[in-house]
Structures are given as C-alpha cells and as structure tokens.
C-alpha cells in the first residue's frame, strides 16, 4: 500500500487535523469527530447535516459552510458514523429550527442515523431525514438493501442547503431535498480498485483491459466486468443507464455532474463530460449547469460517475445561490 499516512489507525484524525489547519472557517472537533461552521449554528435557520464513511472527500466535510451544510460527521473510512457523533453534529447545526439529515442509503448509515434521530429527538432537536438513493446500478426492490446514495448527495446538499439559508422551514427543506433526490440518477464505472488504509490492498484485481461497471463508492466490485472500450461508448452506456431508469422527455433541463472517483485526472473527466453532453444532447436534454471534478470519491479509485438531475422549480435558483465551502464556492 502506498499512501501518505502515518498509520492506518491515525489516518482519519490526521486528515481532520489537516482539514482544520487548512480551513479556519471550519470548526473541527476531534473528540466528537464532527466538522461544523466556525461561526456556529445560525439562529432560526434549519440546520443541514450530513455524514457517512470517510474516503469520499471532499464529501461531506468539504461542503460545510455558508449555503450548504452546517455540520458533517465523518465516520471511519467506508464506515458510517456512530449515533453519538451524528447527535453532536445535529446539536452543532441546530439553530432552533430543526435539523435535516442527508443520509446516503446504506444499511449502516440508515441505522446509525435513525438511532441518532431518536437520540436527537430526546434532546429536543426536531429531525427530518432525506434519504439519497440515486445509483441505478442497483435494482430497487423491497428484497434488497435498495439503491445506493452516490453523486446526487452533492445536489441534495447544495439545494437543500440553499433553501435552508433562504429561510425555508424544516419540512420545506426536507421535502426539497427529497425532490432533488427523486429527480436524480447516477451510474459509475471503475478502471481500478481502491485501497483502504486499514486493509492495505486493492479491493479487487482487474486485468489491464477490463473495467468494473456499476460500481459504488466503497471499493466494492461492480455489477459486471466489461472490456475497456473507448470513452465515447462508456459515456453513452452511462447516460443510457441513467436515462433508461428515468426517461426524460426531450427539452428537459438538467444539472449534470461528471464526478471523478479519486484517481482519474481532470483531463479525462472533461473528455468524458464532452461525451456525456453529446449523448444527452442527442436525447434532447439541455444541460443548464454542470460540475466536472472530484466531488464524491472512493479513495484512490480510478473511474467516474455521471449524475443527471432533471431541473424543477426552484432547483436552479437554489443551485445558483451563493455557497462558500472548501469544495464548492460561488457568489461570495
């Protein structure tokens, strides 16, 4: 394993120490393992909290700040945070108007956030939960754990965060978050496996001419293995998977993200974005906003995901609203 670290055990606290050193706007509490706004909760504003396993940076801590999250609770690498931690984040985020939990749909995340919601309620914090489950690689069925939450998390956090900043109440912020999730679909492919600090070896072996198709963001293998093909075909397949699951009529306006999984250079992401944009244009979809870069990663995995969110009122205005976080910033 080749990583910049001192020990697998100290990895997460040391990453958080670096985050704290780099961003004076953030308050990192190493004991409670939360990252919050240095200025504290905003009185009367709905708090927006998210968290999950680490290894997906900049998600979630990199989205804490004005116009987005109030607090994040990073778990160990690929391990959802524990209830105590989530409650601390809720307390840090609560300005008296309640807190929205943005939870990616994984069994562990769901259970820990549920337990935390109960504990928070005991402490008098009203909680609404928005479950993100946008990954169409996983068949949605009551007989499975359901879809994974991946790229759409960024869209939910941005738009719900902007709504909260604009004064929307708890129900409205949560409803909006749910609508963004419902309007979003993602699909990812991997060119390489990733290596967690604790396991020290790649999660799977992949021949030099094969890719994993339909991967998540936790280093697990995908739905199937395919031969490596030209980026144009891979991009078209990703767009097809996303659009097949939720067909969008021609003329639909969309926010689109081409997201790197950590080990893929930005140049390749732009190339993929060009192909994705062309494939969507072929279907009559107009991309009105986009993100190209590393936003929801899987450690050092080479690969990328495509997320398409069909724009509804008032997504776009909230997307454009000012945001000031380490990883997303505009308008201020």
């Amino acid at each position, binding site marked *: 394993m080749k990583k910049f670290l001192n020990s697998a055990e100290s990895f997460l606290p040391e990453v958080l120490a670096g985050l704290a050193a780099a961003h004076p706007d953030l308050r990192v509490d190493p004991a409670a393992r939360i990252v919050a706004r240095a200025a504290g909760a905003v009185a009367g504003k709905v708090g927006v909290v998210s968290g999950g396993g680490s290894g997906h940076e900049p998600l979630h801590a990199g989205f804490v700040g004005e116009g987005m999250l109030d607090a994040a609770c990073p778990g160990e690498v690929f*391990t959802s945070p*524990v209830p105590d931690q989530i409650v601390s984040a809720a307390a840090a985020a609560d300005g008296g108007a309640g807190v929205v939990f943005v939870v990616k749909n994984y*069994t562990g995340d769901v259970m820990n956030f549920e337990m935390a919601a109960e504990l928070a309620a005991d402490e008098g914090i009203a909680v609404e939960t928005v479950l993100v489950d946008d990954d169409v690689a996983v068949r949605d069925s009551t007989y499975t*754990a359901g879809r994974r939450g991946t790229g759409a998390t960024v869209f939910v956090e941005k738009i719900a965060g902007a709504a909260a900043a604009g004064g929307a109440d708890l129900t409205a912020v949560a409803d909006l978050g749910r609508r963004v999730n419902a309007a979003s679909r993602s699909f990812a492919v991997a060119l390489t496996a990733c290596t967690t600090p604790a*396991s020290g070896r790649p999660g799977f072996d992949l021949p030099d001419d094969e890719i994993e198709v339909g991967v998540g963001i936790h280093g*697990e293998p995908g739905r199937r293995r395919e031969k490596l093909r030209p980026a144009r075909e891979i991009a078209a397949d990703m767009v097809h998977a996303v659009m097949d699951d939720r067909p969008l009529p021609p003329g639909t306006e969309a926010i689109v993200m081409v997201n790197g999984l950590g080990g893929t250079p930005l140049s390749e992401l732009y190339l993929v974005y060009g192909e994705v944009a062309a494939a969507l244009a072929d279907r009559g979809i107009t991309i009105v906003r986009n993100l190209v870069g590393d936003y929801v990663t899987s450690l050092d995995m080479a690969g990328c995901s495509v997320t398409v969110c069909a724009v509804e009122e008032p997504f776009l205005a909230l997307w454009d609203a000012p945001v000031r976080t380490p990883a997303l910033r505009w308008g201020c």
Partner: protein
Amino acid sequence: METDLARAWLRAAAAAIEVNRDHLTRLDSAIGDADHGTNMHRGFTAVLQALDGYPAATAGDVLIRAGGTLISRVGGASGPLYGTALRTAGKRLTGERPDPAGLAAALADGLAAVCRLGSAQVGDKTMVDAFAPAVDALRASADAGEDLGTAARAAAEAAEAGLRATAPLQARRGRASYLGERSIGHEDPGAASTALLFRALADAAARPAG
C-alpha cells in the same frame, strides 16, 4: 450465565476478533467494503476498555454495557446490529445465574432485534444466517437438559455450519446485495464474525470462570 462468564465471553470474543481481523476484512473485501475486521476490532477493543472496572451486577449488565459500546464506537452496519443484539439479550439476563435456557431465550431476543433492525431473515446471506442456527442449537441443547458448555459448543458448531452455508447464497441485504449474482461463492463476513462470537462463548463456557 454468570457475570464472570459474560466477561470471559467478551474477552474471548475480542481475542478471536483480533486474531481474525484481517480474515474478516478480506471476506468483506470480496463482497463489501473491506472494513468488517477493522470495525469489529475497534468495537471489541472498546468493549474491553468499557468493561474494565465497570461494576456489573449481572451478566445482563455486562452485555448491555458491551452492546452500548459497540453502538457508540463501531458504526457501519455491524455496530448497530451487534450492539442491539447484545443490549437486547442483556435486558433479558436480569438474574444472577441464568441457565442455558435463559441464555437461549435472551439471545433469541437479540436475534429477533437484529432481524427487525436489518429487515433480514435466514437466507439473506448476513450474520443472521449464523446467528439463527446458533440460537436454535442453544435452545435445543438447553431443552435436552445439557449444560452450558455443551449447549454453547453446539451453538458454535451450528453457527459455523451456518457461515459455510452462506457461500453459495446470493446476498439480499447489506452491501453484498449490490453485487447481485457476483456475491455468490463468498462467505458473508458478518456470519463469519458471528461464528467467532459463538465459538468464543463455547470456549469461555468450557473454561473455569475467573
């Protein structure tokens, strides 16, 4: 089950998990996210610390304390599940010296809580596939009037058989379910840790308490 036995069980469990940490992580690497060994190790290390000097009146107190520690230290799916299992079981173990039947009933409660929380049933390729047969074996042995050592040994064997039986299954719960058919052919990591926990119980019950 005596307080000392409960402590001995968790010590033995912690030791088994320490030894099998990389193995559990490797199983989780094949069909999950390669953290189960680390998760369990972090959890049981914390459990030993939490129990050190903790004044437990009953075996139930020990299990409740251990379960709470798992919940607040592990995270992931296994933290809430194992934590809830131990807390739920502990709540039934109020007496000072529960017998095999009492332990079987308590662990059956814990299992039920796991199934409820995880919406899992036998055959979904989860820890339940080792947990359920272990509880059945424990109860059968208790019903047959066997002592705790014998009952726990039967439970451990049943858990291990349950673990092996997860290999050919396609996962329907947890991360492994994301792999669809590709989850077939691998043992479930949570079933593997459950088997370790029941083997640790058998070991602790076989040894003189102390």
